[in-house]
């Protein structure tokens, strides 16, 4: 998007300085004043390049072991931000560091990509090999890991995503959810510290979505730092932190309870609230005083039952 930014510029930090309340110490991923522009040469005549500013001054710290959800409309810059984190894109200005390593330093590129894995939206277009286990081995092979160790890693990664039974199958015979789990296994086999999921459930059916979210939950429990980009608000309610982006900027940032309290702002950005939050806010308008901060249907139902008694 071009044009001047909207009147309410600048990130509204929902809970002031709440960052790293739960996660002390040096942040694992540090994004500082990141600007990223796509340049497209004009194809007609000698006009100057078309510049599109996809990320426009974003700063973000991701603590080790945390679960950060990033939400925003298509074109809000969230995918571009993600690709800047593991050096697939390099900043136009500003900086991104992973565990102290700057993405612009050529010497660190491969180490950064090993440590910060990435799972993409389209389950079909990220698997390289016609056999599941060979695909999972692709990353470790690129890292030059010894064959015996690769075998062990592939075995462990397939167990982690529950795809051991299908290890000899061809990807095109798997369901969307299964393909996406293979893609996750391929990243897990590289033993990353963090994984960025770029709308991993957007193209899946409800069952596939559940499978992938289960795997993400297990990885989180194992201490993997998770960054999840999604359109499905209900996938974000148990994140440590929710970041909402619009036109290349962070507009809301805080715990899910803090962020989703700002119902009107979120709706004005063309986003939806998580089901339970929307219900609670509409019940409040009807005079039923559901407390803020209830994020799941279970929580709202529990309150409704309890308060009635």
């Amino acid at each position, binding site marked *: 998007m071009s044009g001047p930014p909207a009147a309410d510029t600048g990130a509204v930090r929902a809970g002031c300085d709440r960052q790293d309340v739960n996660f002390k110490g040096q942040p694992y991923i540090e994004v500082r004043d990141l600007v990223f522009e796509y340049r497209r040469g004009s194809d007609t005549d000698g006009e100057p390049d078309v510049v599109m500013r996809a990320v426009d001054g974003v700063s973000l710290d991701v603590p080790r072991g945390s679960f950060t959800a990033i939400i925003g*409309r*298509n*074109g809000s810059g969230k995918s571009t931000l993600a690709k800047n984190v593991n050096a697939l894109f390099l900043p136009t200005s500003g900086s991104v560091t992973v565990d102290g390593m700057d993405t612009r330093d050529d010497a660190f590129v491969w180490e950064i990509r090993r440590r910060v894995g990435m799972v993409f*939206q389209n389950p079909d277009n990220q698997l390289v090999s016609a056999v599941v286990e060979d695909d999972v081995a692709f990353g470790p092979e690129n890292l030059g890991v010894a064959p015996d160790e690769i075998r062990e890693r592939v075995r462990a990664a397939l167990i982690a995503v529950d795809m051991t039974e299908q290890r000899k199958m061809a990807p095109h015979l798997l*369901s*969307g959810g299964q393909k996406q789990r293979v893609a996750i296994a391929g990243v897990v086999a590289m033993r990353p510290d963090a994984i960025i999921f770029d709308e991993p459930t*957007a*193209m899946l*059916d*409800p*069952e*596939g979505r559940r499978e992938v979210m289960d795997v993400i939950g297990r990885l989180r429990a194992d201490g993997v730092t998770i960054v999840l980009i999604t*359109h499905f*608000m209900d996938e974000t309610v148990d994140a440590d932190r929710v970041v909402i982006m619009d036109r290349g900027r962070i507009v809301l940032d805080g715990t899910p309870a803090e962020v989703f309290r700002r119902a009107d702002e979120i709706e004005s950005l*063309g*986003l*939806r609230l998580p*089901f339970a939050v*929307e*219900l609670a806010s*509409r*019940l409040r308008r*009807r*005079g*039923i005083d559901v407390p803020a901060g209830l994020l799941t*249907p*279970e929580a*709202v*139902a529990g309150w*409704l*039952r309890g308060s*009635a008694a």
Partner: protein
Amino acid sequence: MTIKVSGLSHTYNAGLAYETKAVADVSFDVADGEFIGIIGHTGSGKSTLIQHLNGILKPDSGQIWIDGIDITGKGVKMHEIRKRVGMSFQYPEYQLFEETVYRDIAFGPRNLGLSDAEIDERVREAMDAVNLDFGEMAERSPFDLSGGQKRRAAIAGVIAMRPGVLILDEPTAGLDPKSHADVLSMIRSVHERMGAIVMLVSHNMEDIAAMSDRVFVMDMGRLVCSGTPAEVFADAEYLRGIGLGLPPSTEMARMLGLAAGAIRDMDDLIDAISRMRKGRDL
């Protein structure tokens, strides 16, 4: 416009070891102007079923009447079927190919052999129906549009054929919340304005419950039940057994012990909750 399907069966790879009955003995009727939601687990036969309705797939047995014409009969012109039954596949934007949005939407009407004036009228009408501004969009390349706009342009290409039956396979898959809402309201207005039968295949139970007059449930190639959303979503246990969920509002109503089937959307749910609380307060 009406649809009547009787005893429809379709088997893939018949005779081979891996033959699969994709559709098995399916029969139903759809009345003029009805809005039908079709739900089912992936692989339950929904896509195979709908592809029969415009003659893209031929049944192994069974018959289909569209507007009284048996489209499975011999000597039926495909032309005549396609004119009546429009179909938008999953990710329809992947079929865009022309240099301009205008020409892409005109592709269908042109194949019907219409005059230029008639084509022009239909393209304008279809673009209006999907809420794409003619002046701004008609001469742009479809490949330069945003994701949601591409989707709507592709669906406009089907609408421009002025079908009496509009079949949509997962029209909102992969869209962001705003584009999702845009496409839904577009479908609603097309249904109202054109009076067409709409058949919507979706995994999104919320959309199905909110939009359908009747819901068809598919499982293992069979049409296992059909009825109003209230009737179909009343039996949560059965649906769960065949891998389907409830609309979130219905699920919530169940959690609260309310008459779940009658709750289609959040408005219903909020009404029911306030009634429940008033009842208790008395």
